[in-house]
């Protein structure tokens, strides 16, 4: 009986202490004096600066097409000079290269017109 009463008292004491602890934890600290007035500006000053993206056109595609056109022309002239046009395969291959060259020339020639 005595021990039961003691444990009840102990439980009550613990509950009371828990409530006091909760009350202490629920008290919000006043940190207004710890926040510098220019805090927002300081944070903004540490934000990394974004690098601007370059918009200068490089025209890499156009230069590659020009080189391909020149290479095609050289190959066509070279094949013609060694007499490949005598065979059926040679004629077909020469025509194939010729069509490619014409397409390239047309594309490069009309590019500026399409770009306006």
């Amino acid at each position: 009986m005595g021990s039961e009463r003691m444990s009840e008292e102990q439980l009550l004491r613990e509950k009371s202490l828990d409530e006091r602890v909760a009350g202490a934890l629920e008290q919000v600290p006043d940190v207004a004096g710890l926040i510098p007035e220019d805090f927002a500006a300081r944070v903004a000053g540490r934000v990394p600066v974004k690098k601007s993206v370059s918009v200068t056109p490089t025209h890499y595609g156009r230069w590659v097409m020009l080189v391909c056109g020149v290479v095609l022309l050289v190959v066509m002239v070279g094949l013609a000079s060694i007499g490949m046009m005598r065979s059926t395969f040679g004629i077909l291959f020469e025509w194939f290269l010729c069509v490619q060259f014409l397409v390239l020339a047309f594309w490069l020639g009309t590019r500026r017109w399409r770009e306006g």
Partner: protein
Amino acid sequence: MVFRTLYRLTGSKEHLEDLAQEVFLRLYKALPSFRGESLVSTYLYRITVNVAQNEWKRRRRTDQPLVSISDDTSAWEDRLQHPDRNAEQQMEEREFAGLVEEQLQRLSGVERSVLVLYHQEERSYEQIAEALAMPIGTIRTHLHRGRKKLREGIQAVRELERRASWAVNG
């Protein structure tokens, strides 16, 4: 919110501004990938706790002893908002609050975070679980354990004081 949470979690005002800046910078960098699946405040609490955890690790590495806010010369107890009471009651409340803070800093990081988010910041279990990326059951367990450790720590200190007082007075 950030300053007061960091203050309570780290237990001192040392590097408080730097830590708060770190929180907002991390938020700024993470915002483009923020999909709105949770509240921004929950996300901010998560970042705040992570920054506090990094600070605890840094202090452990530099062998800095746990700083009790009550040891701070700026008087932690004065920063707590008290209702109007007589001087003796106020002093007792302040001492008790200091004792609670001292024992709070002895808890594990997770237990401390859960207690601060639950009691001081009044977050729900679900919000705390989301902020700490833990199941709700785990949060309840940490809350229960944290409260128990706080209570036992305070009881132990009071018992020591009582015995010391008895030894002095005879």
